[in-house]
């Protein structure tokens, strides 16, 4: 079988393609983006054999995937962890309707918040949805788990969550590929009423889902991804999941001397946990993200309860991602003593590229607001432009979650502060800004929405933006007065003009939109890439 060097994300994508995937839906978000980029670039997608689509947001992505599953085909939706908040509604309700063709939701968590606003743990969503979860520890497992997860999804008719973390999503290793499976044929469900979850059906479906929980535990017990290895030294037992298991193996150079339960599939395999509990007095739990397994083990009403150690007991830090050194220390192994750290380096935060259109917009906006009272506030959003928070711009006051710029601005305006301006990217606007703008229109809120239209989803690598070419139509369609949907070109020579336009619209007492439109430098450069000289 052939071998390919793949990122964890790419292994998921290749695994899906080889498992008969028919549709990949996603909204870009670090560290999940490369899953769908890989599918998009595959020969299968380019020949139209697989549908690969950048959806407006994660919710529409999961819904489209559910629709494809309804039609009997295998589909997946991919997103970063916070994207699952947006998609929580279809994800949780797809567990009630059940699936037909295999349905996988890929959620990539970002412990330590390398590119995120929190480090929530997607495994917890499977507690609400009551569905199985798979968590690979390496690229090969990521590849293998996708095919397994599709089978599991089809056998039990539930969506399956595949949880990744940054360090696996963005780590490359060779992966051995299998023979490709054919795609499912389109086929309508033989029991279509379960997809109409009116209360009587919903109650029945929910009861059936609850009844299957024991089956999911049995599946976990016989899963190839859950494995209890015995070790001679039972003074300590180890439970490790995902990438945490790698750090345990690293600490012992592959020869773990303790009983070692490696978790790759949830719900937890009760039988294997029980065996470990009877063998060990103390158990260290090593997991990336929340102390999820640890809390479960602490809550188990066993006859014989060992001491549970981990992130909650302080053996490992409660926040931030694990490192080999942290795990080695928790295992009582001496971490390598290297060269002392240097005190010279100062932080180097990311910054807007030189010549970035956002920089011109922020300069114009800051100057425009200079003539207004100091209570003027700029509510911003998620994207490259959030870097406008740093000097030399220091141009924004908030950044919370996708779309919050417009709706928070509305609320703040309702509270009577002002003037308030919202700053949102074109793709973020299509993702979650449109509905907020409708609120503002209906309420005639005195807010000015500056849409930074760089014609791409820039921060995640220049994917196609759902808003490109449609912003004016969307804004006027939602009811913004056409006279108050203005366009500016954020370049230095237009500065004075742009300041004037912004000032006029900020002064206007109703909802207004200023579209600052100029292509992202990175996407423009990428389009010309073959001419580039460096490696």
């Amino acid at each position, binding site marked *: 079988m052939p071998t390919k*060097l793949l*990122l964890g994300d790419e292994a998921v994508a290749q695994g899906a393609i080889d498992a008969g995937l028919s549709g990949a839906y996603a909204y870009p978000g*670090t*560290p999940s*983006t*490369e899953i769908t980029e890989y599918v998009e670039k595959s020969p299968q997608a380019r020949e139209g054999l697989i549908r690969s689509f950048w959806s407006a947001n994660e919710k529409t992505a999961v819904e489209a995937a559910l629709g494809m599953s309804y039609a009997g085909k295998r589909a997946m939706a991919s997103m970063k962890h916070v994207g699952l908040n947006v998609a929580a509604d279809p994800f949780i309700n797809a567990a009630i309707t059940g699936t037909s063709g295999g349905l996988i939701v890929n959620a990539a968590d970002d412990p330590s918040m*390398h*590119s995120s606003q929190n480090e929530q743990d997607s495994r917890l969503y499977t507690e609400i949805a009551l569905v199985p979860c798979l968590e690979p520890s390496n690229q090969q497992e990521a590849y293998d788990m996708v095919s397994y997860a599709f089978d599991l999804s089809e056998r039990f008719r539930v969506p399956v969550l595949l949880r990744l973390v940054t*360090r*696996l999503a*963005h*780590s*490359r*290793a*060779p992966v051995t590929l299998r023979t490709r499976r054919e795609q499912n044929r389109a086929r309508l469900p033989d029991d279509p009423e379960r997809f109409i979850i009116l209360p009587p059906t919903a109650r029945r479906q929910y009861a059936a889902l609850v009844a299957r929980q024991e089956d999911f535990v049995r599946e976990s017990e016989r899963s190839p991804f859950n494995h209890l290895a015995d070790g001679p030294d039972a003074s300590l037992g180890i439970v490790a999941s995902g*990438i945490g298991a*790698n*750090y345990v*193996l*690293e600490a012992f150079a*592959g020869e773990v001397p303790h009983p070692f339960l490696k978790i790759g599939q949830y719900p937890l395999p009760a039988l294997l946990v029980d065996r470990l509990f009877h063998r060990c007095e103390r158990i260290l739990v090593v997991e990336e993200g929340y102390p999820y397994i640890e809390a479960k083990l602490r809550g188990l009403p066993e006859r014989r309860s060992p001491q549970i150690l981990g992130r909650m007991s302080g053996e490992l830090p409660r926040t931030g991602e694990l*490192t*080999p*050194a942290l795990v*080695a220390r928790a295992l009582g192994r001496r*971490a*390598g*003593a*290297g*060269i*002392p*750290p*240097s005190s*010279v*380096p*100062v*932080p*180097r*935060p*990311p*910054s*807007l*590229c030189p010549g970035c259109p956002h920089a011109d917009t922020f300069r114009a906006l800051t100057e425009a607001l200079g003539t207004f009272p100091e209570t003027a506030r700029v509510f911003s959003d998620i994207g*490259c432009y959030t*870097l406008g928070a740093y*000097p030399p711009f220091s141009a924004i006051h908030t950044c919370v979650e996708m779309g919050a710029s417009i709706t928070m601005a509305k609320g703040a305006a309702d509270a009577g502060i002002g003037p308030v301006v919202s700053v949102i990217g074109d793709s973020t606007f299509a993702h979650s800004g449109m509905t907020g703008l409708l609120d503002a229109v209906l309420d005639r809120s005195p807010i000015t929405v500056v849409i930074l239209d760089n014609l791409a989803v820039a*921060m*995640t*690598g220049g994917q196609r933006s759902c808003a490109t070419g449609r912003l004016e139509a969307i804004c006027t369609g939602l009811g913004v007065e056409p006279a108050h949907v203005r366009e500016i070109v954020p370049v230095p020579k237009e500065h004075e003009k742009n300041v004037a336009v912004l000032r006029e619209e900020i002064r206007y007492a109703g909802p207004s939109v200023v579209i600052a439109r100029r292509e992202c430098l990175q996407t423009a450069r990428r389009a010309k890439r*073959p001419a*580039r*000289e*460096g*490696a």
Partner: protein
Amino acid sequence: MKRDVILAGVGGQGLLSVAAVIGEAAIARGFFLKQVEVHGMAQRGGSVTSHLRFSDRPVYSDLVPDGEADLVLALEILEGLRYVHLLSPTGTLVTSTAAVKNMPGYPPEETIRAAVCAVPRHVLVDAPRLAEKAGSAQSANVVLLGAAAPFFGLPQDSLVGAIKRAFAGRAPAVLEANLAAFRLGLEAGEDGATKT
């Protein structure tokens, strides 16, 4: 045989391309390999790293454990210094003299150089100048690759082969410039290593 390498630089310097070349050369020699990259926000001019590990035995952790790196290869001098604590006591810092001052409070260059020279094993390479000399300012990353080449434990032709494969399909002049950059880096590295 095992090598743990940290690549450090500033977003946009071509660090991932260097990592890919080393990784490809290691794979071609039949080594186990894991390579962590930084994508996303940090790539906008922020501090970026890659952890590259290859060995004749399975590699478990994707990250290089603190204090175990054999090599820190830095495309920017302050970024090299940022990761010296990952070096093992016998590890080497191979760094470009390039200074990218895109944030406030960039320390004085003498201070940085003094701190680099305090690292027991270090090699300083004037990569921007050598890249110009090689015929392409953008080949500074390959100059550094050349300077660090002796530390990978890989035969030179396997690295050269990986460079050739990376530039397959580009203009022949681009490949020539990068091969020249590799050679100049290699010579500079050998010089630098004997002097320090």
